[in-house]
């Protein structure tokens, strides 16, 4: 919690890092001014792309005391408006999981190398980014907390597996080695309540530290204030759960 008499400053800018295959990947980063140490957070953008909402969310995490970085997972599909680039990715069936995992691992190491990060790094994602958050936290060591907001496709029947997405993230549950917070809407079609229940069951079966919340009268993307599926009360409560969860798991 900040107070009205405290100094607050923030630096937010586009940075670059090396991702999968050594490719240059642009990222948007925001951090509080000062020596820290601050916890780190990797933000994974949603299907509509590396867009304004994710820049705002990145700054929001900085405002709450995190060194935040949001890499452009669509870097290899050209540059233009976020919508146009996302449409190109949509046509290709999404980015390959292996590429996304390496890009996100690189973002985690980018944060860990910074002198003002406290040694703890979480990962947050919404929509396809929620799925990617579960995936990378399961496949890569080095994350201390994961926030999955309505990630569709964590549970995948065999007929939904593709060359880009060959393994369902739920199949990596045994390898997840950090606490997970999941926020979902009961009216969502992807993931459905049944798919969320299956994911929760897998986490329970493997003895994982998880906290899932299913919001009534909410569907997909209920944080997005610019979309009709925005749900004010659920979004406020969801953000509060995120801050509580991360402060508990990313403190030095």
């Amino acid at each position, binding site marked *: 919690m900040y107070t009205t008499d405290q100094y607050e400053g923030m630096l937010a800018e586009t940075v670059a890092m090396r991702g999968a295959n050594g490719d240059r990947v642009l990222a948007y980063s925001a951090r509080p001014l000062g020596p820290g140490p601050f916890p780190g957070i990797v933000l994974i953008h949603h299907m509509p792309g590396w867009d304004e909402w994710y820049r705002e969310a990145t700054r929001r995490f900085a405002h709450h005391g995190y060194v935040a970085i949001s890499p452009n997972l669509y870097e290899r599909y050209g540059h233009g408006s976020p919508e146009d680039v996302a*449409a190109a990715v*949509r046509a290709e069936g999404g980015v390959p999981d292996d590429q996304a995992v390496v890009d996100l691992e690189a973002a985690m190491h980018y944060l860990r190398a910074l002198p003002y990060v406290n040694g703890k790094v979480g990962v947050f994602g919404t*929509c396809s980014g929620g799925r990617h958050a579960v995936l990378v936290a399961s496949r890569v060591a080095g994350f201390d907390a994961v926030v999955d907001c309505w990630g569709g496709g964590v549970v995948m029947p065999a007929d939904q597996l593709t060359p880009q997405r060959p393994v369902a993230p739920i199949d990596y549950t045994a390898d997840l080695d950090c606490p997970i917070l999941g926020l979902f809407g009961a009216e969502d*079609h*992807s993931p459905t309540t049944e798919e969320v229940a299956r994911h929760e069951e897998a986490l329970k079966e493997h003895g994982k530290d998880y906290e899932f919340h299913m919001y009534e009268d909410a569907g997909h993307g209920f944080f997005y204030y610019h979309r009709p599926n925005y749900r004010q009360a659920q979004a406020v409560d969801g953000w509060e759960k995120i801050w509580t969860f991360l402060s508990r798991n990313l403190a030095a």
Partner: protein
Amino acid sequence: MCTMIVQKVPLEGFGKGNSGWFEMNQANVSWDHPFHAPEEHALNIDFVNVAYGPGARVAVELSVEGARQLVDTIQSVLGEAEEKGLI
């Protein structure tokens, strides 16, 4: 990318995008999250030419009913033109 329901179809034609008319060579048809339509999913069609970059795109986001009516209407118009010997 939450549904992964997408198909591409090659086609010849021209579209008017952000920078004016361009020669397009492909339509990407998906049932997935729209960018603008106030729905969780829509029938999205992107008319593109990949060689010109992501910005060479004419986009529509249709309701199910609108998409089906469009398909029927295109077939009807082409049929009428064929009947009149114009194709």
